[in-house]
Every structure is written in C-alpha cells, then in structure tokens.
C-alpha cells in the first residue's frame, strides 16, 4: 500500500509541476465552452437545453485528450520496466496511475464543470445532480481511458486510435450521465446508481485489461 502511495504521490506532483494536469485540461474545457455558443448561436433557451450535454461531451473529450499521458512517459523513460519488475503487480500500478489521472484531471474538471455551466445558462436545479453524476462518472472515464492509453502505448499517432477505441466505452457513461441531469427528477437516483455500478465494474476490469496490454508492450 505504501509502495502505491509513493507512486500516486509522484504522479500527482508530476501532473502539478509539468502543467499537463488540471490546468491545461481546464483551459481546453474553457476553449470548447467559448466555441460552442459561437457555433450553436447565443440563444439562451437553446443553450440551457443543450448545456448538460455540452458539459458532458467536453468532459469526455478533455479526459480523452489527456489519456495518453497516463503511461506513455513512464514507458519511454524506462520507469514502467522498473515498475513491472517491482513487487506490486502491474494491475495495481495501472490502477494507481488511473487514480492519479482521475485526481489530477478528471475530478477537478467534473467539480468545475457544473459551475462553468452558468456560462451556458444551466438550470440551477440540475447543478447538484450534474456534479454528482460527473464526479461518479469521471472515475470511470479515467479508468477506461487507462485501457485506451495502455492499448496504444507505443503507436505513432496513437491519440486518434485511443478515441476510436475508448469512445464506444464512454457511451453508457454519457447515457446515464445525461439521464441524471435531464428530464424528470425520478430518473436521478436510478441513473446515479447505474453510474456507480459502471464505475465499480471499470474499477475491477480496467486494471486487468490495462496491465495485460502493458505487458504486451514491455515484452
């Protein structure tokens, strides 16, 4: 456990110092938020209707764009080889790195997103459900992104391939994330429960898949 805590700590420090973490992702988030009303038009009613969807999709894209950082640097400088030989299993290393990505990128974004929704005239009564759904869902987003990152570890222009591989996995999260934030209030609880179930399933399966892929690249 302390071994993994050391890894988590290092990854968080690196994210903070190298500027690849929450700051850059938030900047990307804001850039998309500026562009969308320009593309859609400034009509307040339209923006209010589209706001949860825009926020969710921007969150997905921000997580996806930062996904390749999860393993790539450690692979290139040889750290991953050392980690693969260390006592903690590669599954736990993959899980820890996904958690670090969540804490440094997805979680800050999902906390900030509902408040940035004010820019899109987001209805105030959906701010809480949206925040809850995003915090729950963002962990699954990071876990699934870690699968994509490990599958495309050493592929030139892997970023595009990550999107093709991971976006299908994001469909369920987007569906239940949206059903928690639009429509009738009766849907909020079941949607959040299903999001929690998806996150739990990702928590179990993603590290196994990611570690298997990492091993194939380390051979």
């Amino acid at each position: 456990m302390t071994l993994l805590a050391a890894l988590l700590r290092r990854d968080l420090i690196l994210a903070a110092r190298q500027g690849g973490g929450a700051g850059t992702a938030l900047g990307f988030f804001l850039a998309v938020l500026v562009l969308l009303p320009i593309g859609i038009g400034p009509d307040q009613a339209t923006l209010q209707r589209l706001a949860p969807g825009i926020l969710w999709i921007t969150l997905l894209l921000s997580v996806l764009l930062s996904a390749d950082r999860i393993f790539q640097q450690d692979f290139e400088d040889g750290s991953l080889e050392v980690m693969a030989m260390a006592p903690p299993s590669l599954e736990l290393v993959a899980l820890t790195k996904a958690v670090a990505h969540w804490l440094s990128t997805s979680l800050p974004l999902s906390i900030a997103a509902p408040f940035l929704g004010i820019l899109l005239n987001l209805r105030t009564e959906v701010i809480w459900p949206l925040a809850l759904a995003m915090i729950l869902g963002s962990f699954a987003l990071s876990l699934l992104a870690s699968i994509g990152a490990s599958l495309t570890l050493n592929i030139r222009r892997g970023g595009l391939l990550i999107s093709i591989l991971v976006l299908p996995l994001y469909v369920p999260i987007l569906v239940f994330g949206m059903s928690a934030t639009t429509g009738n209030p009766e849907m909020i609880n079941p949607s959040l429960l299903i999001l929690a179930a998806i996150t739990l399933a990702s928590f179990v399966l993603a590290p196994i898949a990611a570690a298997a892929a990492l091993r194939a690249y380390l051979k």
Partner: protein
Amino acid sequence: MQQFANPTRFLAIANKALPLIWVLTIILFAIGLYGALVTAPPDYQQGETVRIMFVHVPAAWLAMLVYTVMALASAVAIIFRHPLADVAAKSAAPIGAVFCFLALATGSLWGKPMWGAWWVWDARLTSMFVLFLLYVGYIAIWQAIEEPGRAAMIARIVALVGFINIPVIKFSVDWWNTLHQPASVLRMDGSTIDWSIRWPLLVLGLAYTLLFLALHLMSMRSEIAARKLRNLQIARSGEA
C-alpha cells in the same frame, strides 16, 4: 487441444469443405432470394419496401455473430494459446465490418421511405453504429502494430473489452431511446410475422452465415499462408 491446432490439418479440412460450402451458399441464396422477391407478399403497411428487410436483417445478425466469433476466438487465444485462434479472429474482422456497414446502409435505405429520414438516432441504429466503430478500432490495431505477437495480444484485449461492453451499450442505448419496432422475427411465442415472410428471412440468414463461413475459411487460409511466407522471408534474411 494441440492436435486441432495444427494448421496443416485445418487446411486439409478447410480445402475439402470449401467447395461444398460454396455450393450450399449459392443454392440457399437462390431459394432465399426467390422467396424474398417473388413469393413473399408486400406488407399491408410498408408495401414493397418491406423486402429490404430480407437483406438488412441477415446482415445485422451476421454483424453481431461475427463479433461474437472474434471475441470467442480471442478468449480461446488467451486461455489455450491456440495458434489458429488469432488467425480466426483477425480474418473475421473485415468480413464482419462489411456486414455491419451493409446493415447500416440498407437500414438507412429502409428508413428513408419509412420514417422520412435517412438516419434516425434510435436505439438499434446507434448500437449498430457503435459496433461498427468497434470493428474499425479492432482492424486499426492490427494495422498499427508491426510486431505480430504484440499486435495479437493487444487485438485480443480490444476484442474482449469491446465484447463485454456490447450488452452494456445495448442496454444503455435502449434505455436512452426506443423508436425502432421491437424484435419480432425470432420470438418463440408465435412470431408476429407471417410464415411466408419468415421462411425467406431464415433461409437468407442461413445463406449469409454460410457465406461468412466460406469467406472466413478462405481468409484464414490466406492468413496462414501469409504468416508462413513471412517466416520463410525471415529465415531467408537470416541466411543472407
């Protein structure tokens, strides 16, 4: 398990079976198309457009069946290290992708006169679209990774992760939206569809399946030859 792993043995069986499979495929297509275009009556609501179903539905079945075959082969490759399993999964993917594309395109041609739109984001179309993306990702992985052993391992993971997600995607997309008519053909409690329409559909479904089997066996044969060629080239370059 290992005795079936022998490619020579597989090739002998495949070469013997292929002519028979092709003949059966052609006969079934002839019967099925006759049923679809001649004997089946036009629908009282949809008119003649209902006949698109006979090429659309089997393509959709096959798109799902082929991905299942790929996932099973990938699981066999991981568990038993069966050397033919990777060949089977890799060879099936392009065929499945074509069937998936056909299902989408004929569905669109059916949708235009039915719903007045080429494309409707309803549950089944959306999950079929996602299935097509899964095919594209799987094929792209084989092309992007040069080292064959590594490509095989990564492709297995891609196929299995996608397969686990298909029911989740299906469930979530169903929840999300349902406009499409419910599944009715293979319902056991007396299908809502008349037998005169059902039999051509089943015959064509079988014809498509046999077509897949034939193409799959041939692609596997090519893939085995390609690997043998590659090994020979490597051995030759070592001698030089």
